[in-house]
């Protein structure tokens, strides 16, 4: 078994082991889950390292497994491989999964099911990022929904059922469009195939109208996942109701699947359709940036604020994805995906830390926590600054790349408007920081709060280091992706 298969099967094995454990032994369950998510984390780190030094020079798929015939009568294959855009995503998935599992140690009810579902979720995520066969891709894409549904629906907040069903149905609704597109592609290709790499070559030869149909169908499916405005309303509900660790995964990995799938599938497959729609995609992106930021500004709930900031930040990705001919923008998009995963993941973790202690997330009830929880405040301010795009941290690099790429290729006024997002970003973040951490401290009410503990610090420190690293020295990450991105841009320029 190759390394990519093992990324899928080790968490699966972990799930089975967890299910075999006695349900009262919470300690064993937690640590088993940690180990079985820790191994893929180390593997993805090694994979990133190895890919960087040995494969990043070319755009070809690396570590390929297959294609092995799976359902020969339908030409369904087991086919895995990674390139410069999936490797960073895998790394992020490995890291955030492990961190989330550690962050879930305070789950007390139905522990066994919780961790089993979590590991299944990891299987789905890893699978999406390594699949090169549409059937396989679709299977993993759908597999994720199931554990996610239960994780929100069982361990969530007061409106968990509503949020879980909304999430599930909304995504499923999008998947149908994807399925139709896949079928169109399957039947128009001669010989019939589900091989993504082959279809990227043949997709662009489809008649223009069919290209448009497929492109729009794929776009709906992926845009719901991103989420692109106006398909975003499942996100705040899901985030607010989901337990902390699930929010981290949701923001850190699941949203990226939308943009990843665009880059992997629909963008290079239908370049002609893409070009004729790119202006409108940019408009959706800019609406997302401004709209998400403004709505964040009006939020009273910490988690909802972070959730809407995700809408704004993913808007930057869409803006970048609209600027297809610009290498800076596409690189910026990848940077933004990674950076958002790190920063927003950390913000959700931190909101969870506060929620665990105060049992509320309402911004207005806090104030002056800076004097009582200095370390927590410092870390929170750090990530708030990262989220508002302070130079020296990853968010700045990505936003700047996107701006410069989009500015060179898209409507300049449109991009100029999107720059407003930078000020709005600062406004909602600083407003939050000020109202929660600064000002006078209410000793009678919050005197019992304790500062962030060691386990929680250990969870966020890797994210801090990576945020700084990408922000200060983006070169390695850039070089890791550049060959793949150049190839993508060539494909999109067809």
């Amino acid at each position: 078994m190759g390394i990519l298969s093992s990324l899928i099967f080790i968490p699966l094995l972990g799930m089975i082991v967890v299910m075999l454990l006695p349900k009262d032994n919470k300690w064993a369950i937690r640590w088993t889950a940690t180990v079985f998510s820790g191994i893929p984390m180390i593997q993805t780190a090694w994979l990133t390292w190895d890919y960087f030094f040995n494969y990043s020079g070319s755009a070809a798929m690396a570590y390929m497994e297959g294609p092995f015939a799976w359902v020969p009568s339908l030409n369904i294959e087991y086919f895995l491989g990674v390139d410069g855009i999936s490797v960073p995503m895998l790394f992020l998935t490995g890291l955030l999964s492990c961190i989330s599992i550690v962050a879930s140690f305070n789950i007390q009810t139905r522990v066994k099911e919780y961790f089993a579902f979590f590991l299944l979720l990891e299987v789905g995520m890893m699978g999406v990022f390594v699949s090169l066969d549409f059937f396989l891709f679709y299977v993993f894409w759908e597999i994720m929904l199931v554990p996610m549904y239960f994780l929100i629906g069982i361990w969530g907040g007061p409106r968990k059922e509503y949020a879980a069903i909304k999430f599930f149905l909304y995504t499923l609704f999008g998947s149908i469009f994807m399925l139709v597109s896949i079928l169109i592609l399957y039947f128009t290709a001669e010989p019939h195939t589900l091989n993504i790499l082959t279809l990227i070559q043949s997709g662009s030869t489809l008649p223009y109208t069919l290209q448009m149909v497929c492109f729009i169908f794929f776009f709906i499916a992926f845009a719901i996942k991103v989420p692109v405005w106006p398909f975003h309303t499942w996100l705040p509900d899901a985030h607010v109701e989901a337990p902390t660790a699930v929010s981290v995964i949701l923001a850190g990995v699941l949203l990226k699947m939308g943009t990843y799938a665009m880059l992997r599938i629909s963008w290079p497959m239908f370049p002609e359709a893409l070009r004729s729609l790119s202006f409108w995609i940019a408009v959706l992106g800019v609406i997302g940036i401004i709209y998400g930021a403004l709505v964040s500004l009006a939020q009273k709930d910490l988690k909802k604020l972070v959730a809407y900031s995700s809408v704004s930040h993913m808007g930057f990705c869409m803006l970048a994805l609209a600027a297809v001919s610009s290498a800076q923008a596409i690189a910026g998009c990848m940077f933004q995906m990674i950076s958002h995963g790190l920063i927003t993941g950390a913000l959700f973790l931190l909101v969870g830390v506060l929620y665990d202690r105060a049992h509320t997330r309402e911004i207005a009830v806090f104030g002056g926590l800076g004097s009582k929880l200095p370390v927590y405040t410092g870390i929170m301010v750090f990530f708030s600054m990262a989220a508002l795009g302070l130079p020296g941290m990853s968010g700045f690099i990505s936003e700047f790349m996107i701006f410069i790429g989009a500015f060179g290729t898209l409507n300049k006024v449109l991009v100029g408007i999107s720059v407003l997002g930078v000020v709005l970003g600062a406004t909602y973040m600083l407003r939050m920081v000020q109202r929660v951490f600064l000002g006078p401290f209410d000793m009678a009410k919050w005197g019992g709060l304790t500062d962030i503990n060691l386990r929680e610090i250990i969870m966020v420190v890797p994210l801090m280091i990576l945020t700084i690293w990408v922000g200060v020295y983006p070169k390695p990450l850039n070089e890791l992706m550049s060959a793949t991105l150049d190839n993508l841009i060539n494909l999109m320029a067809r």
Partner: protein
Amino acid sequence: MTELAYLIPLLQLLSFVMIVFFLRWKEKLASGFAISMILTAWVMSIWILIETLARNGAPYEVFFYLTSFASINFEIGILVDPLTAIMLIVVTTVGSCVQIYSLGYMHNDPRFSRFYAYLSLFLFSMLGLVLANNFFMIFIFWELVGLTSYLLIGFWFEKKVAADAGKKAFITTRIGDLGFIVGLLLIGVYAGTFNYAEVFDKVGSGMIPAGVVTAAAIFLFCGAVGKSAQFPLHVWLPDAMEGPTPVSALIHAATMVAAGVYLVARSMNVFVGSADASMVVAIIGITTSLLAASIALTQNDIKRVLAYSTVSQLGYMIMALGLYGYDTALGHHSPGYYAGTFHLMTHAFFKGLLFLGAGSVIHAVHTNDIQEMGGLLKKMPKTGWTFLIASASIAGFPLTAGFFSKDEIVATTLNHPVFYVLTVLIAFMTAFYMWRLCFLTFFGKPRDEHRYEHAHESPNVMTYPLIFLSVLAVVAGWVGIPGFPGISEFVYHGEPYHTHVDWVNICVATLVGLSGIFLAWLVYYRKAISADKLAAMAGPLYKGSLNKWYFDEIYQVILIRPVMAIARFMWSFDAKVVDGAVNGAGSLTMLWSDLKMWFDKWIIDGAVNGAGWLVRQGGNLLKFVQTGAVQFYALFVLTGIVALGFAKISGITWWPVLLLVFVTGAIMFGALVRRGTPAEETADAVEGEN
């Protein structure tokens, strides 16, 4: 030493890291470490200045590529040219003084070490900004400076006003940075590089369209407007006075606010490419300067007077630079560049000193209100005299530093009558409000006996920096004496500046300054003219000035409230319309499925059940035919034959009707027959139910 210039900011970063992670718990060690780092940087800066002088100002540049995205290289590097060398001296000198002074001022503060950490981080950012060799890098440090300013203004964050002021400063400057970013994008897209020298080459050789140069210059200037608190973004600086006073001295007088001026000076070649953009710069500069000076006339908070004075002086520098760009673009000579940067240096020294002096006064009397002070010169002579020296300098008293630099600024405006008149007017106002401050604070009778009694001179760690700076507040200007070896040519941009002495100009500038001081003396020392009467005479002007021309209130109404209202509207729009559509789609689906269920239950299933019902009812009816009477059956058969025959004869071919009539008739007849046997009927009926 110049090769090691990168160490200057890095040492400050080291200090920050050391304090945060290792020295936080040892206050003495933390502050000592920070001070030793900045002093080292100070010595290095002097050395670098000497080396740069020895090179005749030839720039030294070194950089390495951070990464490159497509064709654009992003680099980190240092550029040491005369402007950088001077700025290094300014920043490290004021930085050192402030750090030493803070030993006394921040004594007993519970977050003492953290204060030094923040100061070090600030100095790292500021020095990085000064040393940057490209626009991308200067923007990075520019933003870091903004961050540290935010942290330091809100240092006493338990005070709501301080926290508010920090937020306001950050967001207001970020609005300016919006323009800066767009300027950077224009440069990146059209020049394809961020390196100063390469960008200037492309602008100079006309490879970038003139419209783009103008736009880029104006957008870059937006950044400077934010950072240097120029109109209309000046509102954050006075509020920023909520921070500790050493911070005000370092950041909001000498260094950070100077960064905007530095940016304009640094990218002067872009401005020179566009007369229009330069004119915008000059107009914004003079407007700001006049506006701020007019507000400073009436303020009673010692730090706010200084803050508005700072805004006003920065406007001076900006104006001088703008006029330089304008004149040069049109091919005229102008001393503006030299004047702006020269004033930047002298201002840093005397304004830093003024703030530190104000801090010393506040430390002694525990109030910011000058109406509660008076006669403090006797109580605190060192603070008082140094403060007076600085005030003389800013007023342009002959032979002080301010005298020389302000003189150059006035000289810049000689060819622009409107600017000239306003500049002279502002010089007069400056002298007046500064000396109003001096007379109210240090002379006359104490207006608050209690505070006066408790006032005392500050400890030596605080007064020595004052004395040191007061020396600089005088001698730093001497390098500008016409004919003084080298310096005026040294900082000068491009061709050498003609260094002849313009006596008329000097006399005018001096007279104006002295008359301002004289008027203040008449009003606030001799009380020959009543201040209240003056105020009454000015009427609405006085009220406007006292209320800072209502900028905060106006922004509240036209900017902040609308944005919040839009945000709230968007939120309800999101919940009601966008999410409403989603939930509506869900509800519609549910409704549809309910309809389908109804249809299924009553129509589809109804048809099936209905068919069964029909059959059963038919059976129930037909059972009447089963009379069991042979005669009846015979009759039945007979009737059938007759009917068939009738049909055959009459040609009726519509069988169903015939059949229906026939069957109905039979049933009715059967029913009639059965009436005679009720017992049987009941039994049958029971059977039928089963």
